């Protein structure tokens, strides 16, 4: 008999653990697995492939544009077609490629970087993916049917209003894009909760990989930037469908309101696109330079300040709208200011290169391409921030060139670098075919030839969004050069995609951590297994793999937290936000077709109105609520498990037996977005009241005493009910009287809101009436939601899902009720006060 050697025994343990975890976390291997998996590797890969397809579609459209502009008086496209093509090019690139692509990368990489096993809400991620696929496909199908929007990617009314854009093109845009924004918000919430709560043990904020910081900042920006845009889309869609005159001057509206709402979103949007790319550079560059990032804290501060500053820039897109000089000067000053944090980042990267010993290689090559391009784009941006210059080049091809320098140079190039850098991790293979270098040298020089010419043409006066020009305008040679170079660039991009695809499927198997990186995503097996880490790592610094070269081995042997699969369920660790101490054990849901189904009905509710199928849309909405309830019902348990063994002697509570489960955190951030949406509505109201020409309306709504009293009592009941319910559940008492009180309260608030509508029938009369209906609609919607949640809570309590420990759900309901009360009272006050004082 031979004893097993000491070394092989742990290896056996690692293998057994691997097999057990692989079984628990496996997605369905059959075809249906595509629709039921919620694993971040699967969802992220699908996301990535779909986003890349949209890049290809957007690229083909770009080639059509350049083909049309190659020669003067070209007969290649009719102006009507050209309008659709550039609108769709911009829309596809911004909404269907750029945002989803970095979301895909974060889903694939974040759990690994943070040292956790999956994203915080795996099913929400799957839901976001499917909504995106349906919404995006609908927009593309509409284009193929010749029904594409044609008002430019920012869809200004009155051009995009019913009078000047009849047909469903603009509606396709408004509804399709809104559904994609819903998907982006879902993903953003998932990312935030993951970064704040799902990390390796000991990973304090200061030890977080830099990409996690960037993507955290970006996700908060999504939650605060998208709601104004969603509101704008809602207003415009309601105006188009029901003639509520938000943007019609003659009835008290103002088209400038759209521009404010759009750019409140649109400017942060460009940083939402740039910052993830910057995060990739800050991740990759130090590794390629064999050193650590210089000035980590400064970079974090720069990212945060850039994010916030970017919300104070929106008017620089409106310099030619006749806004007073002082207003222009505010935004000009703020626009020049963003160059400061951007420079901090650039200098940190240059300093990192300086400090280290850089090696070339394809990722590095693309980063060099980024530097050469982005700096120029940043400088033309500062030029555009200067008002008099802006007046000269507004709406010319100079702007087109500027935005492509930042978008392609600042986003596409770094993302390609990231794809090559992470390829060994994502595919398990090391690049073998060297097509990528050729592609690089095709893309970067031809990019500069294309867009330098476009800059020049713009300075010479060529306007954007015009389908052709005359031979005697002097732009012929520049445009021809730009077009030829752009075709070369397109070939280069095609080769890049080919190179990645070929290498991903047939290149040789590689070894773990080929670049010698220090962060956790490289500590697992490659390609990353479904469960991510065999045990949750314990980290003591920012670069755990450098601190402990054997870390991968320890993790694989189950020597971190939760390195024991005997409970046969998908468990991972929740840590404290700031210091990363282990707090809770969370059980993630298994495979499910629910996200897919919910996405089907959500998308139906968005798309059915395109065909005037309002009944279908209504039914779909009911199905959304029903499926959401089924979804929630499957979580939690009926017995208290008490604390469970998390390894290392730590006995931790289950997240479902805590006061702040992940769902509570998710709700907080969803309500942040909801609050910004509500704030945007108030802003729109105040804006119209202040500057719209046809104000004041003929009369203001006069508040009625009974309605005010009903509203206040309702608010009181809806505040007290959920509180008392939480207290009752915490004490093990009966909760239903308190829950009933809450339901009655929400109904009372709803009645008060309805009274506003009843007092002012005819929202199509004046923008004021339309705004009142939206304010009341906000209250109505939220009171209904609160009532549904309270009923649900009552059912959960009755079915035994609540206990003094399992109280998180009641807390979530309380949160929503509080939000309803707070915003409801503000909305009603906003509706009633002008009449009370007029």
């Amino acid at each position, binding site marked *: 008999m031979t004893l097993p050697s000491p070394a092989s025994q742990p290896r056996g343990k690692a293998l057994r653990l691997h097999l057990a975890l692989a079984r628990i976390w496996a997605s369905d291997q059959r075809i249906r697995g595509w629709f039921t998996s919620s694993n971040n590797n699967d969802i992220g890969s699908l996301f990535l492939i779909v986003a890349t397809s949209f890049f290809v579609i957007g690229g083909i459209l770009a080639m059509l544009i350049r083909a049309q502009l190659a020669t003067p008086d070209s007969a290649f496209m009719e102006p009507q077609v050209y309008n659709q093509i550039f609108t769709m090019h911009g829309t596809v690139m911004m909404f269907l490629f750029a945002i989803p692509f970095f979301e895909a990368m974060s889903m694939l990489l974040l759990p690994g970087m943070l040292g956790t096993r999956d994203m915080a809400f795996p099913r929400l991620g799957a839901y976001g993916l499917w909504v995106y696929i349906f919404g995006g496909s609908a927009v593309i199908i509409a284009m193929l049917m010749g029904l594409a929007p044609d008002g430019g990617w920012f869809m200004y009314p009155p051009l995009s209003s019913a009078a000047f854009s009849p047909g469903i093109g603009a509606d396709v845009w408004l509804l399709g894009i809104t559904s994609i924004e819903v998907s982006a918000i879902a993903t953003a919430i998932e990312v935030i909760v993951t970064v704040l709560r799902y990390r390796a043990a000991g990973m*304090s*904020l*200061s030890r977080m990989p830099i990409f996690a910081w960037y993507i955290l900042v970006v996700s908060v920006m999504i939650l605060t930037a998208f709601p104004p845009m969603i509101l704008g889309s809602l207003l415009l869609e309601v105006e188009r469908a029901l003639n509520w005159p938000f943007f019609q001057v003659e009835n008290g509206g103002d088209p400038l309101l759209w521009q404010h709402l759009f750019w409140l979103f649109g400017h942060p949007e460009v940083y939402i696109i740039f910052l993830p790319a910057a995060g990739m550079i800050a991740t990759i560059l130090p590794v390629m330079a064999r050193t650590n990032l210089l000035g980590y*804290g*400064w970079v*974090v*501060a720069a990212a*945060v*300040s850039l994010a*916030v*500053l970017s*919300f*104070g820039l929106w*008017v620089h897109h409106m310099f030619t709208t006749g806004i*007073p*000089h*002082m*207003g222009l*000067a*505010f935004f000009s*000053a*703020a626009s020049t*200011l963003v160059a400061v*944090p951007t420079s901090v980042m650039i200098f940190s990267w240059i300093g990192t290169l300086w400090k280290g010993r850089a090696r070339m290689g394809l990722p590095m090559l693309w980063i060099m391409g980024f530097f050469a391009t982005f700096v120029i784009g940043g400088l033309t941006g500062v030029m555009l921030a200067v008002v008099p210059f802006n007046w000269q080049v507004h709406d010319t091809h100079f702007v087109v060139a500027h935005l492509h320098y930042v978008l392609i140079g600042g986003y596409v190039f770094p993302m390609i670098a990231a794809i090559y850098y992470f390829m060994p991790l994502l595919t398990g293979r090391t690049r073998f075919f060297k097509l990528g270098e050729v592609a690089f040298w095709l893309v970067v020089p031809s990019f500069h030839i294309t867009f330098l010419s476009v800059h020049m043409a713009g300075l010479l006066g060529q306007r954007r969004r015009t389908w052709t020009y005359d031979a005697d305008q002097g732009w012929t040679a520049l445009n021809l050069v730009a077009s030829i170079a752009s075709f070369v660039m397109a070939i280069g991009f095609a080769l890049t995609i080919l190179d990645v695809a070929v290498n991903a499927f047939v290149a040789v198997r590689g070894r773990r951590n080929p670049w010698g990186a220090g962060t956790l995503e490289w500590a697992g097996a490659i390609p990353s297994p479904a469960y991510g880490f065999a045990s949750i790592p314990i980290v003591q610094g920012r670069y755990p793999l450098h601190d402990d070269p054997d870390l991968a081995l320890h993790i694989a042997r189950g020597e971190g937290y939760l390195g024991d699969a005997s409970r046969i369920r998908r468990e991972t660790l929740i840590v404290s*936000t*700031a*210091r990363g101490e282990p707090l809770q054990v969370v059980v993630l849901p298994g495979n499910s077709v629910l996200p897919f189904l919910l996405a089907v009905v959500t998308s139906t509710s968005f798309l059915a109105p395109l065909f005037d199928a309002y009944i279908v849309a209504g039914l779909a909405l009911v199905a959304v609520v029903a499926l959401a309830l089924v979804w929630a019902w499957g979580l939690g348990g009926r017995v208290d498990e008490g604390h469970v063994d998390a390894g290392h002697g730590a006995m931790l509570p289950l997240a479902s037996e805590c006061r702040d489960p992940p769902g509570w955190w998710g709700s907080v951030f969803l309500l942040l977005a909801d609050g910004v949406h509500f704030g945007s509505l108030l802003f729109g109201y*105040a804006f119209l*009241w*202040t*500057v719209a020409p046809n104000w004041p309306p003929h009369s203001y709504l006069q508040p009625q005493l009974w309605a005010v009293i009903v509203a206040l009592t309702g608010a009181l009941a809806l505040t007290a009910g959920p509180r008392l319910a939480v207290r009752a559940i915490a004490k093990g008492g009966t909760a239903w009287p308190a829950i009933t009180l809450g339901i009655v309260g929400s109904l009372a608030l709803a009645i008060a809101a309805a009274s506003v509508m009843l007092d002012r029938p005819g929202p199509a009369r004046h923008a004021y009436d339309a705004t009142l209906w939206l304010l009341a609609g906000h209250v109505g919607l939220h009171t209904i939601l609160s009532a549904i949640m309270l009923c649900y809570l009552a059912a959960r309590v009755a079915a035994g899902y609540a206990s003094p420990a399992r109280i998180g759900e009641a807390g979530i309901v309380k949160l929503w009720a509080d939000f309803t009360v707070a915003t409801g009272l503000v909305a009603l006050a906003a509706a009633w006060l002008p009449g009370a004082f007029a």
Partner: protein
Amino acid sequence: MIDILRLSLPITVWLAGFSAVYALQGLSCSRHWPADLDARQVLLAAYAVAIVLQLIALLAVLYAPSKARFVQTTATVLAATALGAAVWTLMPVLATSVCL
């Protein structure tokens, strides 16, 4: 959570102040503005208030420091940035015409 606030609040105050002054300027050019009220004086006062708020935010970060050194330095840098941003971005109040 408090650490997150330390990091995010001062610069958010800048955003609020900036937007508020811009809104005030818009209001001062609208039909709602009382004719006998000097808009520039009010805007200058608002500028001063915005700066004072930013100073308070900075002092709050300095005098109620975080236990984590990283958070403390980053929060200080951010609060100082916010102060600088308030001074710089609202400076047009001093010079440019109000409603032209």
